């Protein structure tokens, strides 16, 4: 009988990794076949034999650093380079929502060294005393002057720096133009109307109250951040009416869009870019009514077990050379002018990464209260269990 193991062989893993790095398969496929993307992607620490030994005796930052982040958001080659330079392996935990990250930190003992909160969560983390003020002397690669303040100011609370910018982006939707009959989609109104009409059974919304409710509010032209009871009630009506027509409620929409089961889904910039690169018929649309613009940050939780390694990793990833490679890999723009200088002109003019000004002005940053509002949370639960 053949030996069956619950992980793929090292040789197969390396083959897949190489195929992935050559770009012949997608990140999502790589994460799926290797089982790394499913729940917890463990790079480095769990597979130390695969990674190169440090080129020189490392300092005293320890042998690992634990990173909590989002799916499809890093270039695995950067982590390998970090390990080669410092001897510390990067162990990566992938999350689906800011709430989930907050819940883990609130419960305590997360064991994380670095995590990637979104702009609207940082005041909550500070209020709950869950993150530490950053020591900029340990982040020489962080140059505040190089950042567009729109995407960096949420990192400071009451004049103290708690988080440094990673990437920014927008929340729009992807649509497969093979099924639109030549019609060009432009609005959230169309997104919801199509969902309940010719795209019935083919549309997906995020399993995330902030964006799903926010973009339902946009149907009526209300603020993405509304917590007004009357406006939320209208959004709920729309969501409940649309639910039987949805293909799925899930933030893991790339596989279904790729295999053709779903024709349309709410989507974030990088997923839109990744899909559009592999399948040109997939278009990324920002609703004319507006929607969300966001900025993610690197932060260090209080009591991080490998604090020095945490700073070393953030500093490494902020190095413009490394950061440029990251942007090329995941397709999310950065607000760092030094990094942008290193990026190809075509990318800086890409309409998915850098939408037209009139579309951008209509977008809103999510607010802290939007995330923590109990009424929105209950609305989402009613929608999901309807």
């Amino acid at each position, binding site marked *: *009988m053949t030996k*069956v*193991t*619950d992980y793929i062989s090292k040789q197969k893993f390396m083959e897949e990794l190489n195929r992935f790095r050559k770009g012949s398969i997608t990140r999502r496929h790589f994460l*799926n076949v290797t*089982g790394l993307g*499913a*729940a917890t992607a463990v790079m480095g620490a769990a597979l130390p034999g695969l990674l190169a030994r440090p080129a020189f005796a490392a300092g005293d930052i320890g042998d690992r650093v634990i990173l909590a982040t989002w799916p499809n958001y890093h270039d695995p080659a950067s982590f390998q380079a970090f390990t080669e330079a410092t001897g510390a392996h990067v162990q990566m935990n992938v999350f689906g*929502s800011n*709430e*989930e990250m*907050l*819940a*883990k930190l*609130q419960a305590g003992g997360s064991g994380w060294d670095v995590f990637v909160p979104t702009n609207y969560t940082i005041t*909550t983390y500070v*209020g*709950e005393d869950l993150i530490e003020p950053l020591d900029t002397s340990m982040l020489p690669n962080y140059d505040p002057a190089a950042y567009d303040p729109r995407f960096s100011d949420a990192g400071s609370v009451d004049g103290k720096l708690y988080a440094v910018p990673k990437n920014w982006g927008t929340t729009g939707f992807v649509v497969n133009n093979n099924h639109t009959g030549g019609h060009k989609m432009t609005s959230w109104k169309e997104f919801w109307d199509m969902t309940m009409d010719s795209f019935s*059974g083919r549309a997906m919304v995020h*399993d995330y*109250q902030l964006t799903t409710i926010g973009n339902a509010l946009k149907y009526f032209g209300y603020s993405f951040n509304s917590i007004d009871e009357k406006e939320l009630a209208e959004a709920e009506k729309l969501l409940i009416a649309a*639910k039987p027509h*949805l*293909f*799925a*409620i*899930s933030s893991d929409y790339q*596989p*279904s869009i790729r*295999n*053709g*089961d779903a024709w349309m889904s709410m989507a974030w910039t990088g997923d839109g870019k990744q899909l559009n690169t592999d399948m040109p018929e997939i278009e990324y649309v920002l609703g004319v009514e507006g929607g969300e613009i966001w900025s993610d940050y690197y932060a260090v939780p209080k009591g991080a077990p490998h604090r020095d390694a945490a700073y070393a990793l953030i500093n490494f990833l902020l190095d413009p050379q490394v950061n440029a490679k990251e942007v090329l890999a995941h397709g999310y723009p950065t607000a760092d002018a030094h990094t942008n200088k290193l990026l190809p002109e075509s990318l800086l003019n890409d309409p998915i990464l850098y939408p037209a000004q009139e579309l951008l002005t209509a977008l809103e940053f999510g607010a802290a209260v939007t995330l*923590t509002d*109990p009424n929105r*949370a*209950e609305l*989402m*639960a*009613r929608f*999901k*269990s*309807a």
Partner: protein
Amino acid sequence: MSIRTRNWLLLAPAGTLFLALLIVPLTVVLVFSFGERAPAGGVVPAFTLEQYANLPARWTAFKNTLTLAPIGTLAALLIAYPLAYFLAVRADPKWKTILLVLVIVPFWTSILIRSYAWIFLLGGRGLPALLEWIGIDGVRLINTPFAVLVGIIYGYLPLMVFPIYVSLDRLDKRLLEASSDLGAPPWRTFLQVTLPLSVPGIATGCMLVFILLMGEFLIPAMLGGGKVFFVGNALVDLFLQSRNWAYGSAVAVALVVIMLITVTIYMRLLNRLGARRDDVAIM
């Protein structure tokens, strides 16, 4: 060492585990369920029944779980019984071990990976494409209660097969011969001898599968596309998304109570069944 001390020592490891991992957490959950949600999430201690009064808001989750868990258990039983019977009674002893191992093989891979495989199999390019090829168009399987049921049966089948197999394997074959010698046709032997004697296996298998299914959240989330909402999914959302620990605890307590009631009724029924069989045996 006295016998008493020795007995205590024997029970100590399991007892400690039981206390630390069951009694203490359940007590915490019970205490939380009377609390209130803190403004930024979590729980503030209080004594209010508000969370319990809110339970009807998760009625759909309870309804889905209490429908699909029994259906899934029954379906798994109907598929597992003939298989277990074949393995225990009919299979060539030469092949028996290999066949038994094959039943467990799926357990060697994580259920998560196996569910991903089902996403592909039931998705548009899997079974529906095959059906289209033979002329049946427009079949949607993924993200339906049916897909969840398939995932459930597939995931829990081994748990049902083994207890039944064990009870059938231990069956005294001379009883079957006796039944046959006394003129009973095979179907009658099965109904009056084999089936009653395998009831303990059926009971164990059903209980195992049913109890685990009541807390299931992964299969509905993955194969139901977030549209087939179980109590397990409601709990994950309450603790990890809306961070309403107080309400989440109340839902958890309700689930435990429902399970206790169901299992108690189930045990009563079984005991009565057992008692009746004894009467028959005496007659």
